[in-house]
């Protein structure tokens, strides 16, 4: 780890000021010389590994008083970005009306990490690609733009099959983001010119030719809240992984359904562990909407979700696995008693 200046942000404006001053135009925010610190569970890790080398850290935890509320309402759910994962996962109304959110959080990381990690930090979690996290590998377009991708023909069992480019196949590792993108959440962002909202689906950027740019956040901008419209009691987060706990998804599905009289009126499907960004499977949703549910329909939806998937040497299994996870998540959602 390299020496850095530690600053506590007493109010959002100061935090935004300091962070925006440290960002340079046309430079990825992840390389800005000042970085925000919330739970610290990703940033500190990457600093120890010498992957991130900020000269200053702006501790935004003092903003928690305004930014950590959990506010369920009849029309929408609002979650402060500094709410702890564990608090949201255990919240009664979220368990009842948004099981996909509660479970995506509960099945992530470990109890200790969930107690520290915040929602905003969680969606910003960076990839677990081994080649990205080990600076002794020169070839990483995300860490070292233009240097190539060691994972492309390396050990890539954990890597993505959707949203990849010839520059990067690193998987977006989180779980909660799949719930947000499935439920059409918006994200509230606080920056130099105040607060703006955008669809959560527009927050992350697929790697394309610039895998070093991971989000659409502007210099200085901080996530202050998430807003989820409606209620989704018929929703499921299914996560397949190598061990029973404390492990990233090999494949996961966030599914939310609105079923009336046996007909699917609305369907939401998002995929985790298989894509470079939080992945909304709209093709799958299109198969489901307006149909009566049966296993063949679920299979058609799953096939549609992975129609564009591209496997590499060690991760092709994720395509078949991902489809089965989607099918099972749909079956579970349909049969939920609510």
């Amino acid at each position, binding site marked *: 780890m390299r020496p850095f200046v530690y600053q506590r942000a007493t109010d959002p404006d100061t935090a935004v000021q300091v962070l925006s001053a440290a960002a340079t135009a046309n430079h990825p925010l992840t390389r800005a010389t000042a970085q925000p610190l919330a739970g610290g569970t990703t940033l500190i890790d990457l600093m120890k590994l010498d992957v991130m080398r900020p000269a200053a850290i702006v501790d935004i935890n003092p903003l928690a008083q305004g930014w950590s509320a959990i506010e369920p309402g009849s029309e929408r759910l609002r979650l402060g970005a500094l709410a702890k994962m564990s608090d949201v996962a255990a919240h009664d109304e979220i368990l009842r009306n948004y099981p996909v959110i509660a479970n995506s959080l509960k099945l992530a990381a470990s109890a200790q990490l969930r107690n520290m990690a915040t929602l905003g930090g969680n969606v910003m979690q960076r990839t677990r690609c081994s080649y990205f996290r080990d600076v002794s590998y020169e070839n990483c377009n995300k860490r070292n733009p233009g240097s190539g991708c060691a994972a492309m023909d390396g050990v890539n069992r954990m890597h993505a099959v959707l949203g990849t480019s010839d520059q990067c196949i690193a998987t977006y590792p989180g779980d909660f983001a799949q719930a947000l993108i499935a439920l059409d959440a918006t994200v509230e962002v606080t920056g130099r010119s105040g607060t703006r909202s955008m669809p959560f689906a527009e927050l992350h950027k697929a790697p394309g030719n610039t895998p070093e740019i991971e989000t659409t956040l502007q210099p200085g901008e901080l996530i202050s809240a998430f807003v989820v419209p409606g209620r989704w009691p018929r929703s499921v987060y299914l996560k397949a992984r190598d061990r029973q706990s404390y492990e990233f998804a090999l494949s996961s599905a966030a599914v939310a359904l609105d079923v009336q009289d046996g007909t699917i009126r609305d369907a939401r499907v998002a995929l985790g562990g298989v894509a470079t960004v939080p992945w909304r499977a709209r093709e799958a949703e299109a198969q489901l909407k307006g149909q009566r549910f049966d296993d063949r329909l679920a299979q058609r939806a799953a096939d549609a979700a992975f129609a564009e998937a591209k496997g590499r040497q060690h991760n092709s299994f994720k395509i078949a*696995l991902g489809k089965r996870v989607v099918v099972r998540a749909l079956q579970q959602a349909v049969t939920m008693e609510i």
Partner: protein
Amino acid sequence: MTAAAPEPKANMGQPAPRYDAVAKVTGRATYGSDMPLDNPAYAFLVTSAISKGRINSFGLDDAKRVRGVIDIVTHENAPKLKESKLFSNGGYAGTTIQPLKSADVAHDGQIIAVVVAESYEAAREAANRVKVSYTTVTPSASFDSPGTTKAAAKGQNSQFKEDPKVGDFAKAFDEAEVKLTASYETPTQHHNPMELFSTSCAWMGDDLVIYEPSQYVYGLKNGVAEQLGIDADKVRVVNPYVGGGFGSRGSMTPRTAIIAGIARRLNRPVKLVPTRDQGFTIATYRAETRHEIKLGARRDGKLVALRHEGVEVSSRPDPYCVGGTKTTTRLYACRNVDSLVSIVRADRNTPGFMRSPPEVPYLFALESAMDELAVKLSMDPVELRRVNDTTSEPIAGKPYTSRSLMPCFDEAAKAFGWAQRSVTPKSMSDGDWLIGYGCAATCYPTQMGPSAARIRLQRDGRTRVEIAGHEIGTGAYTIIAQTASERLGVPLEKVSVFIGDSDLPPAPVAGGSNSTASTCSAVMMVCDRVRQRLFKALMPNESLTDKAKETVGIGQTPTTQAAKSDRPLDLEKAFDALGAGVVEEYGEWKPEGAPLDSFKAMHSGHVRLVGGAAMKDKIAYAFGAEFVEVRVNRFTHEIRCPRLVGAFAAGRIMNPRTARSQLMGGLIWGMSSALLEATEIDERTARYVNDNFADYLVPVNADVPGVEVILLSEQDDHINPAGAKGLGELANVGTNAAVCNAIYHATGQRIRKLPVRLENIEV
């Protein structure tokens, strides 16, 4: 009594709480890097980013500018060290690849520079700023890489003496009524003990003290002295607690002499705490193996032919191999046996001992094949083992000193509910989960080595036991204290134990599961000498002395009832008669059949283990049987292992609490080895990719909801005075096969390559 402290059965000691329990749970136990040093400098390693090639140059300017940097040591300015030979070649080292000697790089993550600074943080920062220019040569990563060489182990590894064979395998296999040929693979694995591979070296004039987690303080002391070119008496290794070893700390790694050399040059203590990922390349590991098993049997299940061929990976310069055929060719009755072990050399760091080194990969192959044979024969796999059970090994016909394999199978089967299984594969399920039951035999050689001990008994009963054994988490303190307490007839709480210090009387390496048998046998012998001194003082006439000798049981006499019958010794009176307040005795014990140079070797840090299949007229193994339930999700194909049941017999159980803990840990490790653990190697670069705890998976609590350990009574008077068979490496042997056998039962799919991942399942 609780599950953690099982009721002792016949020939078992008391489940005394751990001697070091309070120190450990309160954080007072001091591990190597906890030892206070006077004004230490901090070292941080720079390791190679290539596996084969040369260093052209270093760019050190940026690193040297970091405030607090004292020196950056590379091959251009490193202290000169003498070469150390491989442990199996009369030396002490686990590798002969000596870093910082030249610009050559022989494996991934080789130490290429050491940054020394005023703080750990400065050393680490500067290490991150070191730039290295390499000339890279394409390396050979493993079995299937171009450029490797392959040759028989026999003739190149002096510890691999024979490829066991008997009878006429080819003919018998050819004529067998039922035949099986199958190939198996096991992966690269790393020990990952919790305590990192630290070392701290402090000189006091010409004397060196090393604080380092070691499983062999005498070996390390002598090895470092040899490399530094100083007298071994000038070196002391101290490690009262070791945070796990699993074999990784049995032989010397290059780091110690390097740090000692730097400390000598700086005239200042130097402390090194490497990172987790550096531990993958600066120490040893379990190399990947491949196997072909051929079994021929009669319709009734009797084996008539058995062949086991194993191939292992090692480094270019060192012929390390585990050669488990010594066990697999002797486990079952069979008249025609053949075997061959070969070594493939690749551009890798030298592998080494890892918990049950030979048995884990080789029994995975054999015990999987036995299950496959049982399927072919439509036989209960337990009954197939029964039909082929034997009281003598088939190669030379030597008798097993004791063998409770089938009692273990029967006890474990009963506790597990084996009889309730539906025999047909894929016939049991629960909701989304297919259920499978599987079992396998487990075994581990009983080994002993020469050991010394010094024991001091005071008038008030306070006892001090000194022995350079090792507390690697196994319970060494506890059982040594129990042994002295029982043998001297003093209360357990009056016994103090001092281990983990090379200034103490020598003990063998804490490897090969020999520690209990060796150290406790030595402690028993020296306790007897203490008693004899007191008897002689109290009753100085001939017949009483004889009685003392006879009843306290000296030398090679097995434990039996000898010590217990001597309670009448009155300490107060005996000390009065002696005219002293303290009796102290030092003694050296060696096992039956130990080589002539045993005691000399013991002091010079050379291992002289005897036992297992290598004994002259007998063979000694501990046995067990393991049953597992696996669940395979029909949708995700996730594999979980909700129940592990093992029954084990290992001679005298010194302490059922610590024994259970060892065996439980072994079962969990075995499951982990079958389903989770594998070091991934990038074929192109021969580099380890998942060299951290996030990517190298080990089980979490949720993965092991049910583990049951059953201890069977067994008495064996033909092994060592303590009557104990090592059990630290017994439980993780059979589990790999048991898990795969259960997966077969759950899914109908036979998996012959570890670890089993969900993508390997085709339901």
